[in-house]
Structure formats: C-alpha cells, structure tokens
C-alpha cells in the first residue's frame, strides 16, 4: 500500500508525464486553448491510459515473455493500443452515448498520444505488478490532467493579456509550458521511485 501511494505521488507530481518526462506534449499544446476541451482530453486519457496499462502488461507477461519476443515490445504495444482505442470507442458509442459524446473527438486522437505508449513501456521497465501497473496508469493520466488543467487555465488568462506582438500565440504558450515545467521541478526529490 505505501508503494502505491509513492507511485501516485511520483506519477502525478514528481515525474509528471507532461512536465517532467515530456511525453504527450502534442495534446498538451494542441487542445489546451480552453479549460473545457482540456478537461475532455484529460478524461479520455485517464480512461485509455488505465485500460492500456493493464492490457499491455498482460500482453507482455503472457505473450511476449513466454515466447521470447520481448524485442517486439514497442510494435506490439502500438498495435494493441490502437486496437484498444478503437474497441473502446465502439463500445462506448453503444453502451454510454453520454460519455462518448463528452469525450468526442479526443478518444480517437489518443491513439497517437505517446504518453499512452510511454506509460505501457515504463510499467515493464519498472517491473510493476498488475495492481501497481493499474495504479501507475491512472496516476500518470491524472498527472497529465493536472498539467492540462493548469496550462489551459494559464492560456485562457494569457489570451486576455496584452502580450508583446512577437510573443503572441504559440511563442508565449511554449514559454509558459517551460516555466510550468521549471515549477514542477520543485517536486524533485519528494519521493524516490
């Protein structure tokens, strides 16, 4: 149990996926213009990352390792994640139209989110158990969500500011992301994992 708490703190704050590991930067910059879309994306990521962590862990443990195919890890994980997102989308549309509508376009977009692949690979590297893997996946997605919410809130405020002309748009967003990443470095050393 203490290890699970350490994993959560580590994934959300200390080794935040976006701000410390620099994974999932593409949706971080792409859909962070508004807090509402950022929240939608975070929700979809939370859903997919947790599922993907579990499924890739099972694939690795019960297919790749027994057959000595560990070197196919990246390829098979990409394949599984893409198929999984498709499956989830199909199932959601039927089973929970409300959630499907809420996640909307963000669900298929996640197929290409490297944070999802990153969390799957890290699970294997850190030799987590299935429970730890599930917790790590969800916590990493929460960390992604925290970064998204902070960043989109900042961007909404910046939009209203009188930014100097050369810095408007992407430039000031990237500077903000950099400063935010620096701020998160303050968590370094809080827990060790």
């Amino acid at each position, binding site marked *: 149990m203490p290890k699970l708490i350490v994993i959560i703190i580590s994934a959300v704050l200390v080794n935040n996926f976006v701000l410390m590991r620099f994974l999932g930067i593409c949706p971080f910059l792409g859909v962070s213009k508004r807090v509402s879309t950022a929240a939608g994306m975070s929700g979809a990521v939370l859903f997919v990352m947790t599922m993907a962590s579990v499924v890739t862990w099972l694939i690795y443990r019960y297919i790749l390792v027994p057959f000595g195919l560990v070197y*196919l890890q990246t390829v098979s994980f990409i394949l599984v994640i893409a198929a999984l997102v498709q499956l989830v989308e199909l199932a959601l*549309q*039927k089973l929970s139209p409300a959630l499907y509508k809420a996640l909307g376009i963000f669900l298929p977009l996640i197929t290409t989110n490297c944070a999802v692949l990153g969390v799957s690979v890290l699970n294997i590297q850190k030799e987590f158990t299935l429970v730890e893997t599930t917790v790590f996946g969800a916590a990493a997605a929460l960390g992604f969500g925290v970064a998204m919410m902070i960043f989109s809130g900042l961007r909404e405020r910046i939009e*209203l500011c009188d930014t100097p002309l050369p810095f408007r748009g992407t430039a000031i967003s990237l500077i903000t992301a950099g400063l935010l990443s620096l701020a998160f470095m303050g968590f370094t050393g809080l827990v060790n994992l």
Partner: protein
Amino acid sequence: MLTAVTAMAILALALAFGIAMAARIFAVVTDPRAELIEGALPGANCGACGLPGCSELARRIAEGKAPVGACPVGGEPVAAEIARIMGEAFEGGCERQVALVLCNGSDQVAAKRFFYNGVFDCASAALVAGGDKACTYGCLGFGTCAAVCPFGAIDMLPGGLAVVDPSRCTGCTKCVSACPRGIIRMVPAGRRVHILCSNHEKGAAAKKKCAVACIACQKCVKAAPEGAITMDNFLAVVDYSKDIPDPVAAECPMSTIVVRPGEACAGDAGRTAAAGGEG
C-alpha cells in the same frame, strides 16, 4: 523469426477479429440520411441553430425533430438540398437574415471622451468608464464582433466602425451576442433603408456627441408608411416587416438613414430588390 511472425500475426488477427466483432455487437443504427444531410450542411459548427454542431442538427433533421430549413447559415440552397434528401417538398421562402451594426459614428464624426490605451477589445473598453466614445450607444470599434465572426463577414473600417457585409453574412448571430453595446441587430437581407443609430438620448445631447446621430426629429416617421418607422425613447426604429421606400432616407437632416443595396430574392424573381421588395 518464425515465432515472432506467427505471434504478431495471431495477435493482429485476434485484434482485428475483436474489432470486427465489436463493430457488429456494438453497432449503432444510424439514419443514413443523417450523414447525407451533414454533408449538405455548411459544416462550420457555429451553433446558430441552437444545437452543438452540424452533426447534431443533421441527426435531428433526419429524425424529423427539426425542420429542413433549421440551418440559418445555409439558408435557402441548403434547405432545398436537405428537403431533397428527406424527400420533402420545400417552398422557397425569403427569410434570410443578416446582421446590421446600428451605428454609423466613425471617429471622423463621433466625439471621444478620452484616449483609451487598454486591451484591444470592445468588452474591455466598455468596462473603462463606459468606453472612450462620447456616445455610450456607439460602436466602440475594437472589432470584437469581427473576431468572433466565423465567416469573416465583418469589416473594421479605419475610423473604428464595424460594418457587416451582407453577402458574406450567414446570420449565425454570433456578433449579436458578442457586442457589449448590443447594437447589432438581425434584419432581412432584402431591406434597403436602415437607420444607423442606437442613441436614445434627446436630440441636442445626441447631436453634441455624433454628427450622424438620430436627433428624434421624426421627419422619417412622417415620410415613411404608417408604422414602418416608430419612435422609441428619442430614437427612430425601423420595423423591418414593413416596406420603406428609398426617398425616406433623404428626409433625414443628420444623414442617419442610409440606403444600402438589398439582396434580390432567389426564390421570388418577380420582385426585385430595386423595387424595395421583400428580400
């Protein structure tokens, strides 16, 4: 090598089979017409119809919950196309509405009270002592409406005045809700005579602030057909359901009333815009 190929092939096949099965099990029956209708809609997802997006409107129309002409942006051509998809008869109406900025007070004619040097946005400017323009009913000219227009139909004149181009305006009403002054109004596209002022102050006060303000002299009210122009708290207001002949504009001593080319009605070629007909 062989194990690798076999394992990946089996994995891929299993996933493909899984997706195929899921597609069968979780198949959602959708009306094929909804897709066709979505193709016919403008696809701007502007929300002018009151629904979250074009696909939602398409679904509603296919289900018969919304009329074929529910898209105010697409207007008549789109409505006709959707009616064809739905197999309904569509009688062409000329209801196209366009936005109109009810102010003609550019910086050349309208006085300013102070120099505003804040955020370049109408809402922000309006918060600072009611805006820099002396007339508190006038266009602030920072282009908030032009910025929200998804169709680029609003031009900002150099004198700090927003002007809607009726040919590009699709009637999505986004500018109407964006304007902090509330001086943008939806009017029928075929109309030619407009009173471009929103100032409700008495004549003398309005005249001091703007050279083209309505001074409530009521000359136009008398010249126009009964009820076509009415006075509302010292401001002449056009009732767009009634026809106003062009010469009424010449009656205005302040040049507040303008004549702009109206749009000919596509569905009713018999009446031309030149005759001031229903647009």
